[in-house]
């Protein structure tokens, strides 16, 4: 695997927008060329070389691995629209990490800010710390958000994660979120997303869910009154093929929406 190392060399007073940092944009380029790629800092267009030390070189997209060191907690849009390759970030990361990604893998060894994995179309996003609000969500005004791919957050995800997620049985696309715990409105307006939570979630999980599967291994702070108990199960079979073992109470919901819901919520018994 061809590796490119980026180390941030300036302290940021304003956010730095780095949608050019993707394996797709780095593929086939030398460090010297990569240094000239554009970034945005406040209102000025700058270059990667202005803010990062760059070393290494890349080959094709699928074999390109970008490793980012230094404090990039205020760097936004890394990995935007990438289709393959790998990015490893050894710090907290700013907003919009991996948005619109359709392939490849991003690992954040730290916390992520809001909109992590927004509009994900495929690929894998892994965050070892907590993530902010709107993980795997649709952007404003879009009524379909994450359509495929996997997001794994070891810690807590913020509000409205997996907003407007949309799966597709004919295309075998199952957008999936695994997280340690979640804030309120997890899976709101869910249209087929799969969510597995190791711990607790806050209020209004599965609000307005039309179909999808949400599995909570911990507790729910307040369940919506429009969810109905269906029965008890010894395991949950997820549409992506995975099986989660354990005793769960199965609920159907959200029975608030006008059409008949096919959504399911499983809470540990």
């Amino acid at each position: 695997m061809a590796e490119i190392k980026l180390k941030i060399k300036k302290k940021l007073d304003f956010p730095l927008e780095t949608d050019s940092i993707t394996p797709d944009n780095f593929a086939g380029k030398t460090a010297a060329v990569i240094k000239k790629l554009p970034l945005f800092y406040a209102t000025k267009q700058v270059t990667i070389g202005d803010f990062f030390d760059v070393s290494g070189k890349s080959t094709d997209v699928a074999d390109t691995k970008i490793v980012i060191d230094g404090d990039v907690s205020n760097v936004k849009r890394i990995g935007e629209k990438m289709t393959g390759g790998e990015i490893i970030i050894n710090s907290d990361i700013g907003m919009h990490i991996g948005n619109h990604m359709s392939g490849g893998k991003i690992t954040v060894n730290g916390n992520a800010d809001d909109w992590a994995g927004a509009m994900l179309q495929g690929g894998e996003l892994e965050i070892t710390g907590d993530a902010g609000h709107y993980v795997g969500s649709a952007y404003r005004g879009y009524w379909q958000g994450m359509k495929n791919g996997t997001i794994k957050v070891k810690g807590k995800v913020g509000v409205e994660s997996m907003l407007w997620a949309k799966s597709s049985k004919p295309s075998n696309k199952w957008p999936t979120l695994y997280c340690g715990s979640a804030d309120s409105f997890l899976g709101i307006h869910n249209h087929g997303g799969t969510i597995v939570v190791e711990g607790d979630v806050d209020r209004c999980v599965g609000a307005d869910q039309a179909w999808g599967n949400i599995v909570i291994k911990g507790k729910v702070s307040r369940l919506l009154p429009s969810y109905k108990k269906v029965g008890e199960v010894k395991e949950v079979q997820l549409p992506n093929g995975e099986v989660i073992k354990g005793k769960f109470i199965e609920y159907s919901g959200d029975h608030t929406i006008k059409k008949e819901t096919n959504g399911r919520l499983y809470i540990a018994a």
Partner: protein
Amino acid sequence: MVEKIRTEKDVSCPFCGTLCDDLEIDVDIKTDLVVEVRNGCQIGTKKYFSSNPSDHRYMKPLIKVNGEHKEVSWDEALDKAADILVNAQRPLLYGFSSTECEAQSKGVELAEMLNALLDNTASVCHGPSLLAIQDVGASLATLGEIKNRADTIIFWGSNPVHAHPRHLSRYSDFIRGYFRTDGRNDRNIIVVDPRNTHTAQIADKYIKVNPSEDYELIQAIRAVLRGSELDVKEVSGVPIDDIKELVEELKSCNFGVVFFGMGLTQSLAHHRNVDTAIRLVAELNDYTKFVLIPMRGHYNVAGANQVFTWNTGYAYSIDFSRGYPRYNPGEFSSVELLLRDEVDASLIVASDPGSNFPAASVKNLFKHPLISIEPHKTPTSAFADVILPAAIAGIECEGTAYRMDGVPLRLRKVKDAPGETLPDKEILERLIEKVKEKIGE
């Protein structure tokens, strides 16, 4: 006989989103002072009187020198303001809700020139309503329709007796309408609020909801409406039988309306409270006619949303930093930007974030140069580096304002602007010229 008083009739009041258009203002011809206001509420009346010169009305431009505000010429003040904006790396232009549409348009022009952040007070008020409308649409109507047709009126998280004092008498409660010829007696008023507000006390029905639990209650109402059986005794503090009774009441009315306010937008869940309220209204249209109208606070915040949208495609929380407008409330909202200290200069127009923003964000606002376009001394202007004294729109200069239901009304000029004050529009035009000079256009 020499005329001593000039009376202006059919004046549009520049205070709240009700934008009453029936005020009568008496101005003393010799002194050009407002001497009487008829038909206005307490607050609108006070606003007209506050336009008379006083110790808290700015008459000349001011620049802060050694901690004190010093009177300077317009040229000097505008020059300093332009310097601040041009030298800033990430300036914020905020406010715009208490001024007229042409001025708001100039604000957009200036923001675009500076590649700045552009926001209006919807950001801390009905922004969540706009977010919800962008997600799920909205069934709206004008206030005239409500006056003439509505027989069931719900105030949810809104207290018009205090915030929109003449709303009930002009449009939503006491007034006689074409199909509501018996006025109050032809209407059923329902209030949903954690407190038994003064509006609740004159309603037909008051539903006490637990604070921050409106979302669950509306979900329950929607579920009962579509025929789902709920297996609970109460939701958000409201007994299930009361919810069922309410649903029957709403289904059987002729024309219903939900007026909603900060109780939904400023509580936890914010735009999702409005999202589900909009869905409830839409779903009620399977049974009868139902609409909803947001109770906009400022008299022209709706206008700011309109003007920003015509020009940029977006209603508020806009970023021009990459040379074209981008929109993302949260990321580009004024309070969030200030909390993260991502703004290094601000131009505050026709608003008072010093009073109305959470303290932690005001702290960061004050860390950087601040220009205030403002008629009166406020907790924002008192700490500004440059004060550009404005004429009051709707009193001292005319323009267009948009009512809470989207109807545009013309604001009138009833007297001249005092001292050296200038209309917001003109101040922004002059500022644009100065900025153009400095960036070499």
